[in-house]
């Protein structure tokens, strides 16, 4: 162990000696201001590159994305609608928050691997992987409480009176009490669905309460039952 440390130190020592000594040729002003400017340039370049890889054009640059998922997106309401607001790939698939975004970008290195080795290079391979890929996205959106949906669709701004009675009831029953999240019900809104055998719709109650009347109740009924229970005790 000690020998290993000594070996590493032998490598690191010359660099450390340069770094730990004051500069001989460059002024303090040059080093501080120059360092600051270089920092700005580096940070700017880094963010520019990050933004460049965060566009629909970049995503659909690969034929895997262009021939499969991009074609499907074009038929949906997130691509073409009356008000002309369009969701691009990164709007839904990359977190907008900086740290989360960097984490997702690091995860995406696996996708570079997949691109190089042609994991989904043909339509058949893509269809074979579709369920697995979809499950990754469902799990990610479930875990972050459908954060990417909520970047545009906020619960607070949702006017239930402008929805159909059915939609308003379901949102009031599941979304508002945070019992379910967007992706539980709204799967396959921007792409075609994989084989959904055995994947239940989001509005289904757990099997143990499915037959009971209470499984249809909203938050208000739950509260009333709780209060009635408390009163009798």
């Amino acid at each position: 162990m000690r020998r290993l440390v000594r070996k590493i130190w032998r490598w690191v020592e010359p660099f450390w000696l340069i770094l730990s000594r004051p500069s001989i040729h460059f002024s303090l002003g040059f080093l501080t201001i120059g360092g600051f400017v270089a920092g700005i340039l580096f940070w700017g370049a880094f963010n520019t590159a990050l933004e460049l890889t965060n566009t629909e054009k970049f995503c659909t640059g690969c034929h895997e994305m262009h021939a499969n998922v991009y074609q499907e997106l074009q038929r949906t309401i997130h691509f073409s609608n009356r008000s002309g607001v369009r969701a691009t790939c990164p709007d839904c698939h990359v977190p907008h928050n900086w740290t989360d975004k960097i984490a997702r970008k690091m995860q995406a290195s696996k996708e570079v691997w997949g691109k190089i080795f042609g994991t989904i290079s043909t339509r058949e391979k893509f269809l074979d992987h579709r369920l697995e890929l979809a499950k990754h996205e469902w799990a990610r959106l479930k875990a972050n409480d459908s954060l990417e949906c909520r970047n545009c669709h906020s619960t607070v701004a949702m006017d239930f009176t402008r929805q159909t009675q059915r939609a308003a009831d379901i949102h009031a029953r599941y979304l508002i009490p945070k019992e379910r999240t967007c992706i539980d019900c709204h799967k396959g809104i921007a792409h075609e669905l994989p084989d959904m055998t055995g994947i239940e719709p989001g509005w289904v109650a757990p099997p143990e309460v499915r037959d009971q009347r209470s499984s249809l109740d909203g938050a208000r009924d739950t509260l009333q039952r709780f209060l009635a229970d408390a009163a009798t005790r």
Partner: protein
Amino acid sequence: MRQHVKRFVVTVGIAACCITVSTALAAELMSLRGSVGIEEEIAAPPIAPDVNDDQRRMRNYPEQPPVIPHQIRDYQITLNANKCLSCHSRQFTAQSQAPMISITHFMDREGQVLASVTPRRYFCTQCHVTQADIEPLIDNEFQDIDSLIGAERGAAEEGAQ
């Protein structure tokens, strides 16, 4: 000479009759385009929005596939998934409170009842369609069986009196 004149008059008379009849027929045989010439292009009427009020509509005859009283935009009905069945299938109707697909949807063509929806009834929009609030292009004189029976009965009663 007289004969010639007579023949000419008769020929002209027949031709005139033919033209009047054919123009009258042409006026009757107007296409859905209206009286717009074949060389002209007419602007398509705007697409009407689908009825979306969730109110069940009466069926005109018992075998009629019920119409869909809600929007179905972007509902996927594919080999992989059927969005309609996520509410209307037997196991999900308790939660969704949607009408269940009828027993005929479980029968194959021999009348054998299957465990789940039969492949020949899987594609919902082959029979079930959404509705739009628009003027029909052609008047429909369909009468349902009750009004037919009622009319007949009324006529019979009048006859008896």
